[in-house]
C-alpha cells in the first residue's frame, strides 16, 4: 500500500509544486505537524484575526437587528398563541398535546421559568395584551432572538470551514442576518429560531466532521461525529422538518461510505464495517436516544392533567395527576342507568317521543319510529339503562358488564329499547336508521341486541365509565352506533343525526359512558361503593407513552389540511411571492408581515439556478470529453475548484432540496416560514456560487491531514479588489431591501401610501393599503 502511495505522489507531484516547502516535523509527542507551505505565518495570523473580527461584528449586528424594539408589540403575535401557551403549560406542568416534538417548546418553557413567568396567561387570541397581564414576554422573546442571532456566526462558520474566503462567508451570513423573514420569525415566541439554529449547527458539525476524515476514529473525529448526531437530534426535537436535515446529512454519509467501500481505495471489509457501524452509532442510535430523552423529560415535566388529555388513550390519561378518569371511572353493572357521550362530537345519545317523519324531502321513507339523536346538553332523555341478555347472579362481580357482552339499552323516559334495522337513516342513504321499540314487541327483540366492544381491551375486561371507550356493534347487522356533526331538520329540533355505520374501521365510532346516574334499584350508584378511594396514578412504560404520542403527532400533522388565508404553496416560496400577516393594529396602522428580504431571496434563487446550470453544463461537457472546470491537481494554482463545487456546494444544494421539495408532497397547510431552513441552505449555495464566479479559488486543502495523507500545497483564496467591490454592492442591495421592508418586520407605523410603496409584489396581502384612486 505504501508503495502505491509513493508512486502516486511521484506521478502527481507536478513540477510547479514547490516540493521544498513541504516538510514534516515530528514533535516530541510523536504527532506529525503539517505546516502549510507557501503561506507566511504572519499572513495566516492576520487572516484569522480578520476572520474573527468579522465573525464578531456579524454576531453583534445580528443581536442588534433582532433585539431592536423587541418589546413591540406588547401583544400576542400570530403563533405565539400556540407556542406561548405551550411554554406556560410547562411552567404549570399541565399536559398538552401538539403536533411538534417537544424540545423547542421546552426551551421556551425554560426561558419563561428563568425570567420568572408564572404561567398564568392563556395566550388565547392574537392581540391580547402582555403588559396588562404582566407577562415577562420580553424575556421569552429574547431567548428566541438569542438563538436566532447565534445562527449568524454559525452560517459564517459553515462557509469558513468549507474553505471560502472571509468576504464570501460574510456575505452569506449577511443574507441571513438582514433577512426580514428570519428576523420576524426568530424574535417572537416561536419554534423556528431553535429549528433553524439546530439545522445550521447540524450542517456545521457535519462539515467539521468531514474535515476529520483522514484522522478517522480519533478523538476529534468522534467529537464531531457525536456533535453532528446531537445537532440532528435537536433539529428533529424541534419540528419534524428535522427529518429532512437527517436526510441531507444521511445522503452525504452514504456518498462518503460508498467511496470508502470502493475497492480501489484498498480498504478491507472490516474497515468499511467499522466506518459504517460507527456512523450508525453516531448518527442514528445516539440521536435517537437523545430524541427519546426529550420526550422522557417532556413526560416528567408534564405530570398534571391538562388540555391535552382527551387526545390520549385512557391508559395514558391514567398516568396524569388529577385526570378525570382517575377520579370517577367506575365499573358499570347491569341495570345501571348511564349517559353515553360520543367521543369526537361530545354529544349525548338522546331520544324523545317524537317519531321520524313518514317521508323525507328526497322522497325516501322512514320507519316512523321514535327518533334517536345526539344532544349536547344534560337532559333526562339522555338516560339509558343497560339490560342483560343472560342470566345474572344476584350480586357480586357477575353483574359487571364486560368487554364483548351483548346487552340491550332501555330509554328510561319512554321505556323503549334502542334498535337499529335495515332502513336508511334520515341524512345518509348508506347508513342504518336508529330508533326505539316497545320491549313487548318480541318480533323485534333480535334487533335490539348490541355488543359492547371496549376499545383496546381483552376478553373479560370490565366496562368502565369515562375511561372505557367503546364501540357499540349491532349484533344482527354488524353496524356501529355512530353520529356525525350534521344537524337534522326542524322535525328533530335541529339535533345531530345518529345512524349505523357499516365501516368498521371508522375512527369516529368511539363512545364513552359519561356518568352512571343510578343503579338497578334506582338509587344513586355511589351507595354501591361507599368508600371511593382516591386512585393512585398508574404507571405506564415510557416507550409505550412515546409510541402513542408519536403516532398521534403524525396523524394530527397529516390532518392539518384546513385552508388558511395566509397558507401558500411551495412553488411561491423561493421567490417570496406571498407572506403571512402576523399582527395588525388598526389604531396606529401598524402591522407585522412576515416576508423575506425580497432581493436577498432572489439572490439565493439565482444562486441555486446558476449552480444547477454550471454543474449541468459541466456534466454535459464532460460527457463530450471537454473539461470546462478542471479537475483537482490539473493545475497547481486552482486545486479543488471542481472538487469543492461537486462536494461542498452539492451538499448544500442537497440540503436545500431535501428541505424544500418534500413539501410538494405534503397535503397539510403550508406557510412561508416552512421555507426558512431551506432558505438558509440556499444562501449557502448562493455564497459558494458567488465564490465560484468572483474568486475562482478556495482555501485548500481544508481537511485536517492524517498521518499518511499525501501533502498538497496549501492555497488561500484570493478575493481581490473586484471581489470585495462586488460583495460590497450585493450586501448594500440586501441591506437596502431589508431597511425598506423593516417597518413591516418591526411593526412600525406606516401611512397608506407608504404601505403601497412597500408592497413590492402585487401578490403580497398587506393591510392598511391606501385605496387606489378610481
Amino acid at each position: 500500500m505504501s508503495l502505491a502511495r509513493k508512486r502516486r505522489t511521484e506521478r502527481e507531484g507536478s513540477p510547479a509544486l514547490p516540493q521544498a516547502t513541504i516538510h514534516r516535523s515530528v514533535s516530541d509527542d510523536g504527532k506529525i505537524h503539517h505546516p502549510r507551505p507557501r503561506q507566511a505565518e504572519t499572513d495566516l495570523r492576520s487572516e484569522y484575526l480578520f476572520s474573527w473580527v468579522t465573525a464578531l461584528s456579524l454576531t453583534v449586528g445580528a443581536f442588534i437587528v433582532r433585539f431592536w424594539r423587541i418589546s413591540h408589540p406588547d401583544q400576542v403575535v400570530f403563533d405565539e398563541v400556540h407556542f406561548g401557551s405551550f411554554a406556560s403549560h410547562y411552567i404549570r406542568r399541565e399536559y398538552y398535546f401538539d403536533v411538534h416534538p417537544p424540545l423547542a417548546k421546552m426551551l421556551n418553557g425554560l426561558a419563561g421559568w428563568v425570567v420568572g413567568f408564572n404561567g398564568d396567561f392563556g395566550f388565547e387570541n392574537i392581540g391580547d395584551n402582555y403588559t396588562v397581564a404582566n407577562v415577562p414576554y420580553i424575556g421569552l422573546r429574547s431567548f428566541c432572538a438569542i438563538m436566532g442571532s447565534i445562527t449568524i456566526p454559525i452560517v459564517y462558520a459553515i462557509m469558513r470551514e468549507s474553505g471560502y474566503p472571509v468576504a464570501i462567508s460574510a456575505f452569506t451570513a449577511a443574507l441571513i442576518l438582514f433577512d426580514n423573514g428570519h428576523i420576524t420569525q426568530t424574535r417572537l415566541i416561536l419554534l423556528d429560531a431553535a429549528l433553524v439554529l439546530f439545522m445550521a449547527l447540524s450542517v456545521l458539525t457535519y462539515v467539521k466532521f468531514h474535515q476529520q476524515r483522514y484522522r478517522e476514529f480519533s478523538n476529534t473525529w468522534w467529537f464531531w461525529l457525536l456533535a453532528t448526531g446531537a445537532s440532528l437530534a435537536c433539529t428533529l426535537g424541534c419540528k419534524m422538518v428535522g427529518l429532512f436535515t437527517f436526510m441531507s446529512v444521511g445522503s452525504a454519509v452514504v456518498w462518503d461510505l460508498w467511496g470508502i467501500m470502493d475497492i480501489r481505495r484498498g480498504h478491507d471489509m472490516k474497515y468499511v464495517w467499522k466506518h459504517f457501524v460507527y456512523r450508525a452509532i453516531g448518527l442514528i442510535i445516539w440521536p435517537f436516544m437523545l430524541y427519546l430523552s426529550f420526550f422522557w423529560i417532556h413526560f416528567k415535566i408534564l405530570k398534571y392533567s391538562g388540555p391535552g388529555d382527551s387526545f390520549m388513550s385512557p391508559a395514558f390519561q391514567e398516568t396524569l395527576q388529577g385526570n378525570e378518569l382517575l377520579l370517577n371511572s367506575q365499573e358499570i353493572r347491569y341495570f345501571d342507568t348511564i349517559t353515553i357521550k360520543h367521543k369526537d362530537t361530545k354529544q349525548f345519545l338522546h331520544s324523545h317521543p317524537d317519531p321520524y317523519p313518514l317521508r323525507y324531502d328526497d322522497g325516501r321513507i322512514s320507519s316512523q319510529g321514535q327518533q334517536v339523536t345526539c344532544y349536547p346538553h344534560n337532559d333526562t332523555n339522555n338516560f339509558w339503562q343497560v339490560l342483560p341478555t343472560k342470566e345474572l347472579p344476584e350480586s357480586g362481580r357477575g353483574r359487571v358488564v364486560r368487554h364483548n357482552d351483548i346487552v340491550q339499552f332501555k330509554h328510561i323516559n319512554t321505556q323503549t329499547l334502542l334498535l337499529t334495522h335495515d332502513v336508511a337513516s334520515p341524512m345518509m342513504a348508506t347508513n342504518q336508521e336508529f330508533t326505539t321499540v316497545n320491549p313487548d314487541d318480541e318480533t323485534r327483540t333480535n334487533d335490539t341486541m348490541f355488543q359492547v366492544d371496549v376499545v383496546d381491551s381483552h376478553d373479560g375486561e370490565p366496562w368502565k365509565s369515562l375511561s372505557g371507550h367503546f364501540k357499540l356493534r349491532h349484533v344482527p347487522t354488524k353496524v356501529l352506533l355512530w353520529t356525525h356533526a350534521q344537524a337534522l331538520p326542524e322535525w328533530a329540533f335541529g339535533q345531530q343525526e345518529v345512524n349505523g355505520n357499516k365501516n368498521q374501521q371508522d375512527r369516529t365510532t368511539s363512545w364513552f359512558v359519561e356518568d352512571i346516574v343510578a343503579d338497578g334499584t334506582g338509587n344513586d350508584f355511589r351507595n354501591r361503593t361507599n368508600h371511593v378511594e382516591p386512585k393512585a396514578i398508574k404507571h405506564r412504560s415510557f416507550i409505550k407513552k412515546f409510541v402513542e404520542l408519536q403516532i398521534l403527532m403524525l396523524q394530527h400533522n397529516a390532518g392539518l389540511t384546513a385552508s388558511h388565508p395566509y397558507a401558500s404553496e411551495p412553488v411561491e416560496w423561493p421567490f417570496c411571492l406571498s407572506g403571512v400577516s402576523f399582527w395588525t393594529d388598526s389604531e396606529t396602522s401598524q402591522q407585522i408581515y412576515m416576508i423575506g428580504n425580497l432581493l436577498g431571496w432572489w439572490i439565493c434563487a439565482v444562486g441555486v439556478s446558476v449552480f444547477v446550470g454550471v454543474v449541468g453544463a459541466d456534466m454535459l461537457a464532460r460527457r463530450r470529453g471537454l473539461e470546462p472546470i478542471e479537475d483537482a491537481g490539473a493545475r497547481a494554482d486552482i486545486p479543488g475548484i471542481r472538487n469543492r463545487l461537486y462536494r461542498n456546494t452539492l451538499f448544500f444544494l442537497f440540503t436545500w432540496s431535501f428541505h424544500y421539495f418534500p413539501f410538494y408532497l405534503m397535503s397539510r397547510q403550508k406557510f412561508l416560514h416552512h421555507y426558512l431552513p431551506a432558505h438558509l441552505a440556499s444562501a449557502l449555495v448562493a455564497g459558494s456560487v458567488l465564490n465560484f464566479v468572483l474568486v475562482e479559488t478556495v482555501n485548500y486543502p481544508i481537511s485536517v491531514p492524517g498521518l499518511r495523507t499525501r501533502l498538497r500545497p496549501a492555497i488561500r483564496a484570493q478575493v481581490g479588489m473586484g471581489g470585495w467591490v462586488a460583495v460590497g454592492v450585493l450586501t448594500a442591495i440586501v441591506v437596502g431591501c431589508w431597511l425598506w421592508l423593516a417597518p413591516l418586520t418591526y411593526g412600525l407605523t406606516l401611512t397608506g401610501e407608504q404601505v403601497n410603496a412597500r408592497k413590492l409584489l402585487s401578490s403580497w396581502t398587506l393591510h392598511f393599503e391606501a385605496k387606489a384612486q378610481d
Partner: protein
Amino acid sequence: MQRHPLPSAASASLQAAVPLSLSHRRTTPRPIPSADAPAEDEEDIHDPRPWESLKHPRTYGSAPNSSHSTHPSLGLSSDRDTGHLPMFHTDENEARRRVGAQPQVYGEKEGLNGAGEKQGLMDEDVSGKWGKPHGAGPGVGGRRGLPPRQRLSGWQGIYAEYEEWIWAAVYTILSMITRFWRIGAANYVVWDEAHFGKFGSHYINRDFYFDVHPPLGKMLVGLAGLLSGYNGGFEFKSGVEYPADLPHTTMRVMLASFGVALVPIAWFTAGEMGWSRFTRHWVTICVLCDIGWLCISRFILLDSMLLFFTFTTTLGLVKFHNQRHEAFGDDWWMWLIFTGWSIGCVCSVKWVGMFAMAMVGVYTVEDLWEKFGDLKMPLRTYIKHWMARISALIILPFLVYAACFKIHFLILNRSGPGDAQMSSLFQAHLRGIDFAESPLEIAYGSKVTLKNYGYGGGLLHSHVQTMPVGSQQQQITCYHYKDDNNHWRITPTWGADPVDPDGPVKFLLDGDTIRLVHTSTGRNLHSHVIAAPVTKEHWEVSGYGNETIGDEGDHWVVEVVDDTHRSRSDAKDGRVHSLTTRMRFRHKLLNCYLRAANSVLPQWGFKQVEVTCDKENNPKDIHTYWNVESHWNERLPAGSAKLYKSPFWRDFLHLNVAMWTSNNALVPDPDKDDILASLPTDWPFLNLGLRMCGWGDNQIKFYLLGTPIIWWFSSIALVLGMGMTGWYILRMQRGYKDWKVGEWEDWTHVGKVAFAGWAFHYLPFLIMGRVTYLHHYLPTLWFAVLIAGHVLDHLFFGNPRDNRPQSRRLAWFVVWTLAVVVNFWWFKDLALGVHGNINDHKGWKWRSSWNIYN
C-alpha cells in the same frame, strides 16, 4: 463447464488468431489510487479493454455498449494482482472470485471450448441468454444474430424453423379459448358496460356526448357495435337484460380480441428480453392465466384496449432497443414508429397511457445521454437521433391523439348530452341546435344563457338551493348541461325605467349597467363583501332578492372585450351580439369581475363549478370572459343562419381542458362509503376484489380479482429484484466480478424498462387525488410480471453461472408453471362466470378481505 454457441465462422477464426497472451499484454503496473485521492480520479484511469479489439457479433454497428459492467481496473491481468501489488488479504478462493477464474477475454474461452461443442437443438437454454446476442446480424425476430442452425429435416426441421410462430399460434388459440369461453352467457349489462356501451351508442347515433376519457376506445366500441349490427337504440342501464336486437356477444367478442392479442404480444415481448425459453414460456403463461386480465377483457369496456396498447408500447420499446446497433435501418425505423403509434393509441384510450409514454421517455432520455457521451459519433448522426425520436415519439403520438379527436368531432355532429361542455361556437354547428337562428343583437328584456369563455367553462346557473356557508343565499354556479335554470333576463338597473314591452327596442350597449335576473327563481345576480366558498380571496356571488327587493349589489357593468367574428370597426356600435361577442361583467360597487375558473364546489353545490367575483382586474383572464349562447327575444328578428366557424384546435384544447377538470372532480367523497373503490396500496398484494355485478343467485356473477400467485409473487419479485440489484452493485464496488461482459447491461436493461414501467404506472396513483379502483393496476401488473420473469430467469431458469443441469431447470419450470396454472384453474370461474348461489362454491376466500361470499 459452460458452453457457448459458436458466434459465426468468421469471428471464430478471428478469435483463433488472437494470442492467448493478449490479456497479459500490459505490463506496466498501474498505481492504485490511494485513500486521499478519492473518487473524482476515476476518470484518469484508462484501461485498454482487450476484448474490444475483437469483432464479436454483439458489437456490430456502432460502438459497443459495454463500458459499465464492472470497473475496468478489475479486468487487470493476474501479474498485477498476484505480483507485487496485492489487494489486501484475500485468500485464494476470494481472489479468484474477484478476478474470475481466468482472464476475461471474450472469445478466448469459446476458442478453446466452444468450437468443439456440437450445437444441439435444445442446447440454447444451457448457454442461456448470454450466448444470444440481440440485434446484430441477420435473422428474424428475437433470434437475430444467431448462427445459422444446422438444417434438420422433417418435423424437427419445421419446428426448428418456425418454433417461435408455432408457439405464438398455440398461445393465441389458448387465449381465444379462455377469452371467448361463454362470453355471451351473461346477457345483461355488466358493471361499466353501462357507461361504455352507452358511449358506443352515441357514436352510432352521432350524438355529441362528454366523457373524461379520450375517444379512441369508445370509438372502437362504437365500431364494434356498428359492425355487429347494433342500431344504437339501447340505453345500457346497469343490470338490464340485453334486448334481442343487440348482438352483445358479437360486440364482446370483437372487444375481447384485444384481450386475446395480449398473450401473443407477451410471447413476442418476452422473446426480446434475452431470457431463456423457459422464462419466455412462463411469462406468457402468466399473461394467459391471470384472471384479472381475463375478466376485464371479456366485457364492453375500455380496459382490454388500454392493456393492448400498453403491451404494444412495451413490445415496440424492447424491439426498438434490440435494433440499436443498426440505427436508422428499416427495422429500427419500423419499431420506432410502431412505438410512437402505440403511445398515441394508448394515450387516446385513457390518460393513464401517459405513464407508458413516460416510461418510453425515460428510456429515450437515457439512450440519448449514452449517445451524447459517444465521442466517436458524428454530431450530425447524433442530431439525427434526436430528430428521429422527436418526430416518432412526440409528434407522431400527438398526431394520433389529435386525429382521434378529429374523427370524434366528425362523427358526432348532432346535438347530444355533452353539448354544454363545448364552446358556443362549436355547438352552433351541431345539428339540432338553433343558436344561429336566435336574434343577433341582445336587447333589454332578452332572455339569454351566458357561457363562460374559459376552456371547459360552463353556463351561468342558479338553483333554489342555498349556500351552507358565507351569506347562505342562493347558489350561483357554472353548469355544464342545459336546463331552464341557466336562463337569465337582461334587466335595467334599480331605479331605471323598466323594459317597456311596446316601446322601441333598447339594445344592450358596451358600458351599460344592468341587472341579471334568474328567470326561474326571480333572484338577481349579486355580489358582496363575503369571501367565496372555495376561492377565498374572491368575493362570493349569490342570488339575492327578487323583483322588488334588491340593492346596488345587483348592478353589473357590461364591458365588451371584442367580437370573434367581426372586426373592431364593425363592432363599433357597441352592441352585444349573440355567440360571438366576448364580454366581462364588472360589479358596479366592488369593481370586481364575474369569474368561473373550474374550481369545483363541494357536495352541497353538487360538484358544480364555483362562480366568484375577482377583485383583481386581469383583462387577459379568459375565465372572466362570457358570451351569450342562447338568446330569446320575440320582438327581434331571427338571426341570419350564417356559418359560425370554430377552429378544430380550439375545440380540441377546449375539450381536453374540460376532461381534465371533470377528471379532477372525481375525488373520493368522504361522505360516501364506496365499496367498489380501493386504495393503490391495496393492489400489489390483492387486498381487495371487486364485485362486477349484482350478487343474486339466479344471475351469472363476475368477481374482478387477479390470479393470486401471479400478483403476490410479482410484487415480491419487485422487492427481490431491487434487493438483488443493490447487492450486486455493492459487490461490484468491492471488486467482485460476478458478471461477464454484457451480462450486467442485460440485467439492468430489462430491469430498468420493467421497473420504470411499473413505477410510472403505479406511483402516480399514490399521489393522485381521484378515486381509484382495482382495475387501474392491470396495466401496471404487466411490468410486475416482467420483473417476476426476470428474477425467475436469473434465479432458476436461465442463469448460466451455476452448473445446474437442464433437467433441473426444467423441473423448476414445471413447478412454477404448475403453480400458476393450477391457481388459475382454481379461480377461473370468477372470471368466466359463477353460476348459482355463490356460497355453494367453496375455497375462494383466500383472504378475509375478499367479499366473494355473502
